[in-house]
């Protein structure tokens, strides 16, 4: 894996007393001025504010009180239903694994806690990392996550696992292909509402945009196992694209309702694109 960490940014201030890279809410050592206090109250001469002290007519000494640069909790939720095992132009599970590994690496570089939860109809223990500062998480992901085989067609485990997430607001990456029903998606977003959620939508070019334009085949639904005979032709591809477009629009609308913005991964994952996404994100 090419180590190329993601410079994620947030627009909110994380609580907590663990020092990290984000501008937090509690007092401590940081870059952002919180208040000026008397040296008498905060006897730390290293932070003496000469300018304020000289300006004071009563010749009191002031020290700077700053916000603590706070560590964040970064959680990656990975959908492990059977559709995540799809191999088209790229191996979808490998892409999910790479995203998780890159995020783990980036979290450690920023001094943030990293947690990983993999679930389909239930939480998968072999794919779980509790959220903590974890130096080797990315290596662990690379070596262990491929042992998890995506299967099943229900994502109840993902909804349930939201209750195990940290109570304080965290940065949550939801890695999935989002082939869920609208109500499930809505429920998932609702449960994660107090977190900063980034839905990472995995797509494969061979699914729709680069699907064969003609010919016949049988497609087997990875989740339900149902087979369908398809005669690929221009009209069918058009309606297929329309359907996918509708689904994407539905996803965007739902996300907007909760203040999220989906990040599309079309094919393989490019960490730079995710960095750009954070630069552009306004919410």
């Amino acid at each position: 894996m090419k180590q190329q960490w993601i410079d994620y940014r947030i627009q909110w201030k994380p609580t907590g007393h663990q020092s990290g890279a984000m501008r937090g809410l509690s007092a401590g050592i940081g870059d952002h001025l919180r208040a000026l206090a008397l040296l008498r109250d905060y006897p730390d001469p290293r932070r003496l504010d000469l300018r304020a002290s000289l300006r004071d007519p009563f010749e009191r000494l002031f020290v700077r009180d700053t916000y603590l640069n706070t560590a964040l909790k970064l959680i990656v939720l990975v959908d492990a239903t059977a559709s995540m095992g799809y191999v088209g132009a790229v191996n979808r599970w490998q892409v999910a694994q790479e995203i998780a590994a890159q995020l783990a690496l980036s979290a450690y570089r920023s001094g943030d806690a990293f947690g990983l939860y993999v679930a389909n109809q239930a939480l998968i223990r072999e794919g779980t990392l509790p959220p903590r500062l974890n130096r080797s998480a990315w290596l662990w992901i690379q070596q262990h996550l491929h042992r998890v085989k995506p299967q099943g067609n229900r994502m109840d485990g993902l909804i349930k696992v939201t209750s195990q997430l940290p109570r304080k607001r965290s940065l949550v990456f939801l890695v999935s292909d989002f082939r869920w029903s609208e109500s499930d998606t809505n429920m998932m977003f609702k449960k994660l509402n107090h977190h900063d959620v980034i839905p990472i939508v995995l797509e494969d070019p061979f699914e729709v945009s680069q699907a064969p334009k003609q010919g016949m085949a049988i497609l087997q639904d990875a989740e339900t196992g149902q087979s369908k005979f398809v005669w690929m032709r221009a009209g069918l591809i058009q309606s297929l694209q329309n359907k996918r477009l509708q689904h994407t629009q539905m996803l965007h609308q739902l996300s907007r309702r909760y203040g999220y913005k989906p990040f599309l991964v079309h094919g393989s994952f490019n960490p730079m694109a995710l960095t750009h996404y954070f630069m552009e994100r306004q919410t």
Partner: protein
Amino acid sequence: MSHLHFLKPELLWLLPLALLPLLSHGVKQFSYPSLADWPKDLASLNVRWAIRLLAALVIFSLVIAAAAPFTEGGTESRVGLGAEIVVVLDRSGSMSEGLKGRDYNRQSAEAGESDTHFLSKIEAARAVLLKFMQQRPADTFGMVVFNASPISVAPLSSDRALAEAALLSAQSQSTGFTALGRALALALDHFEDRPYTASRLILLVSDGDAVIEGEDQEVLKQAFIRQRAQLMWIYVRGEREQSILDTVIAGDNEIITAQDTAYATQQQTASMHQVFSQLGMPYQAFEVDSEQGLNNAIQAVSNATNKPTRYEYRLPRKHYAHYFYGIAIVLMGLLFWIKQQEIVVWQPSSFSKSR
């Protein structure tokens, strides 16, 4: 239309194989993340069932073709035009005598000096019969000539040249005895093993009675009935012969001894004419004593045989296997083409086109 039969009906047990395409899809299968929001596509469904039906039809036709279906041809009532005519030509010695009224100047005719007057009976018969043959292209001719023993010179066939050559080669020769009964029997044998497709006629051209013995009469009678043949007797009358209609015997032997006459009278209680009249088959006799009369007689014969004959024709079996093989080949070609349309790798079309 008769029922369908099969040469190998046991192969029909393989017919359930035609259901095989309904069980197995036989099309390459690919995994797809989710078909939940795959658009409703009636055309694909129809195509799929069409292909299954096609494959089932291929197996069905192959099995049916292997079982070799056929129908019995049955019989067809047909109308036969023309006639099958076996000419039984007497070539006994007396046939070389002159026709009545044309029998003088024989010596000069034999010397080649003049033939304006002399016309032998066989020559007249030959000329008229040849004309008759040429006038009736639809008929089938056979030829039997006889004097002491009958010779089948031309079998009953459509080979007209053969019959005409046989006719032309018939020369009279005296051997002292005329085997009329056996000649008729031989002529009747020509009809053996032939389907009854046209009216059958034995055209006996002779100039005299001959002896047919009692048991031979019965055999001949049975043969006539079995072959359903008509008999027409053109009695070419010369100067010396008596009319068949009123004589008991008109032998062609030049010298009739008293013993001969006695023998013939003893053996043959009725005249030939009476014998033939009792055959049970249509019989006509024409007594002809001139060339013109011969022509008239022939005309009467052709009128009699111009009547169309209704007969039952047994049609051959009709086999249908090749139709089913043809259908199977065409459908398999179609299936092959469809197979070419199958997606081999679920990849963008640019790949599948360039492969």
